């Protein structure tokens, strides 16, 4: 289960950030911000083609002692960043991929909404519900 999910626009400002528990929100904002550098590095093919260039999923960006950060870039250069609790070892790569897939589908639906202006923050309830379902259940 994810602890923080962020959608970053092409110009590197956030369209949507949500994290739980709410008191560490600033720390997660900072983490997501620093992970953008890693995303750019992976995308720019400087890594001698270690990363499969044809995939949208970027994989593990970097691990710290508390959590791991995963990234995903769409073809329109919108980035999804997901922070996952390290203690949750049961989460496999496939599950992360499918979570990003769901995120991408919901984001596409938001884009196709004629009342949504690209570049605004995302306020869609359907998107919120989908993100909630992916977040960890805090009792």
């Amino acid at each position: 289960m994810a602890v923080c999910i962020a959608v970053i626009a092409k110009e590197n400002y956030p369209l949507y950030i949500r994290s739980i528990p709410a008191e560490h929100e600033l720390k997660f904002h900072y983490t997501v911000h620093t992970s953008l550098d890693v995303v750019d590095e992976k995308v720019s093919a400087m890594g001698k083609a270690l990363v499969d260039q044809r995939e949208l999923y970027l994989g593990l960006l970097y691990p710290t002692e508390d959590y791991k950060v995963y990234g995903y870039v769409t073809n329109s250069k919108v980035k999804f960043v997901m922070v996952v609790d390290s203690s949750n070892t049961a989460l496999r790569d496939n599950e992360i991929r499918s979570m990003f897939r769901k995120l991408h589908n919901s984001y596409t639906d938001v884009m196709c909404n004629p009342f949504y202006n690209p570049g605004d923050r995302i306020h869609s309830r359907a998107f919120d519900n989908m993100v909630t379902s992916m977040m960890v259940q805090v009792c």
Partner: protein
Amino acid sequence: MADEALFLLLHNEMVTGVYKSAEQGEVVSDRCVLLAGEHGFRVGQGLIERFTKDTARFKDELDIMKFICKDFWTTVFKKQIDNLRTNHQGIYVLQDNKFRLLTQMSSGKQYLDHAPKVFHRRLGIFVEDKIL
């Protein structure tokens, strides 16, 4: 095909609708062309988002242009681009000899003035490429 005719008629009506609202003073008349272009741009963004969802990541500009000319054009206009030229410095010229949205217009001179309006709307869709 019936559905294609519906879409063409709707598309033409939208363009004339923008111009009618200009006559009624809601919109400044020289902004009309821009407005139609903006409509197309927004439609294009949604379309592109849906289409690129499942395609592999684009490595460079050439990939993007190939995607536009082949996949995107085939899906929207049911044919491929006839000619693509570039000066290798960022300018691309796409040529379509039988642009679907204009084939229904007669080639009399009075219609040539209206053609750019329709064009700009669809052109908006390709400015989306700038985002890519």
